[in-house]
């Protein structure tokens, strides 16, 4: 992966640089906000580690400008813990995640992998809108309609419905759903999938007389 580190503190930048090189990433470094924004816009980075407190241009300003320019480069904020409001603001401005300083490298690596997985997961082979038995999902506007009535879904519910719709007539196991929707590849010992299937059924008005999302006992769920 090609990663840009925007960080004015040379020791921290060097540390990140050396560690991430070990994981086989290609690294670029910008030491102030001005250079950082310039590099994000001119070079095609897969991910940016962005400090908030930067000379010349703050991380927040960079986020704001990227949002205006509709640049979707994944960004992880390296934040000072001054205020949580700052973090919330950053996430609202389109940052994908945040890491509080001081951090552990293992945490940085984990975050990078998670963001990479989340941002590269969909959008490849699938059509932008899907329709099945009156349920319409529009992936560009992230909206769902049932019989032309808009259904408000949370991000998780939306992703679940999307995964089900992508696999019409194919039974998906709970583990598979957990992996695709939650990005969890291990046993979470959980009934969270059943809960969300339940939420979806209720929101879509999917009653037992008119089932769309079916339970396959011992196997998982299927839409048909």
């Amino acid at each position, binding site marked *: 992966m090609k990663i840009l580190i925007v960080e004015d503190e040379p020791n*921290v930048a060097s*540390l990140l640089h050396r560690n991430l090189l070990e994981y086989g990433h290609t690294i670029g470094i910008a030491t102030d906000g001005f250079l950082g924004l310039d590099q994000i816009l001119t070079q095609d980075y897969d991910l940016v580690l962005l400090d908030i407190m930067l000379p010349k241009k703050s991380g927040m300003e960079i986020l704001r400008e990227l949002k205006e320019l509709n640049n979707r480069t994944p960004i992880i904020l390296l934040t000072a*813990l001054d205020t949580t409001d700052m973090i919330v603001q950053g996430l609202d401005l389109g940052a994908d995640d945040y890491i509080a300083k*001081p951090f552990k490298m293992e945490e940085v690596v984990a975050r990078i992998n*998670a963001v990479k997985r989340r941002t590269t997961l969909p959008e490849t082979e699938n059509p932008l809108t899907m329709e099945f038995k009156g349920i319409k999902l529009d992936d560009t506007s992230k909206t769902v309609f049932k019989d032309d009535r808009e259904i408000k879904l949370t991000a998780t519910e939306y992703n679940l419905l999307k995964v089900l719709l992508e696999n019409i007539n194919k039974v998906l196991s709970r583990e598979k759903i957990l992996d695709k929707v939650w990005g969890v590849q291990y046993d*979470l*010992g959980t009934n969270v999938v059943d*809960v969300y299937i339940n939420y979806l059924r209720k929101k879509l008005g999917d009653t037992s007389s008119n089932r769309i999302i079916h339970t396959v006992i011992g196997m998982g769920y299927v839409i048909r």
Partner: protein
Amino acid sequence: MKIKYKIAGIFSLTSFLIIGFIGGFLYFLFANNIEKQFKERLLERAIIAAEVLLEKDNFSPVKYERVKARFLQTLPEEKVFYIETNGSTINYSGLPPQIIDTSSIEGSLTQKYEFYKIGDLDFCSLYYEDNEGDFIILISAKNTEGIAELNFLQKALFFIIFISLLIIAGVSLVFANQILKPINRMIIKVEEISGSNLQLRLNEGKGKDEISRLAKNFNRMLSRIESSFFTQKNFIQNASHELRTPLTVILGEAEFALKSSDLSPDDRLAFQKIYQQADHLREMLNSLLHLSEIKNSGASSEYKLLRIDEVIQKTVIKINETLPSRVIHLEYKNIEDLNENSFVITGNELWLEIAFTNILDNALKYSNNKPVKVFLEDKLSSVCINVEDQGIGIQPQDLSKIFSPFHRGNNAKTRKGYGIGLALTENIIKIHKGFIHVTSIMKKGSNVIIELPKDSKT
């Protein structure tokens, strides 16, 4: 007792004593005067009686008639007795014994007349020398008019005293209220002031009285507290800022060094220690900063509607991503009854994430690598989150103290621990109007129960 009632009570009592004294004094003067007047009349009557009865033969017919007319204006219950005397001997025969006061009657021989009183009746004994012999005229009468007047006066005085007492009590209560009003206003204002709004000040007023001086001094004290508070807050923020970068570098460099394969076992141990301690410092610094932020900003931070179950999912996943060996099981209870609003609460997502991370980290730390279970339950007006570990447990005497900063249970001595995390968690739950409770069985595990109200704004 409230000062208001004390002031009113003292004021009323003093006024009552003064009025009572004045009333009593007036009554005494009046009674004296009435008695004096009556005695004069009694004496006059005695003289007339003497003139009529002893000198009737000496009068001209006209004068006799006049005297008789005067004599007819008798006093109430008037009775006249004649007592013959001879020198100093007095002949009491024929007199009812209950009306005789010998010392007074004898006194009248030398004093010319004497007054005395038996029961309601006033007596006047008059020594009268006459050409036909010496007599004592004893006249008795009842001062009905005087008694009635005194009675009336007494009633009037009581009535006036009673009424004025009521008025004084009422007025002094109003007055005391008026005096204490600025103090009460101050109390209400002072009650509003807390660590999060030290900028509030009391109304100093325009006057130079004690209350405005008190308010001024109080405000001056508040200013000093506020400035030292901010100095401290800034100090914490600046210091933490300065600490952050070196700590990141120490932690990262140690971590980086540990990756190298050509370290001697001793070097490796040394780097491991540096790494562990730096990590410990990192956790402590983070918690301290959060704690100071939450104490300073309080509940004023942004609240949003959020799905608490999704916040927990996110936390669990984040922990797992960092250390996949840690196992957390997430289970919803009564899933058939759940709906989309089951876990919607108002709160600050980031704060709650920090709180759950702390609790889960803690549970994992002491659970001997056994899975930690998280149960989610919709309790209609609140959401219940139950974190169960199968670790070493907490000793009963430590249970009440685990939320105080820097406390570490006896049991945790052998483990890396930091007391601030749970204090921070408790604070976060508190600003969401929720409660957190820990139960534990030694060697079986602990159970952290968090309950968050769905509408934490009220």
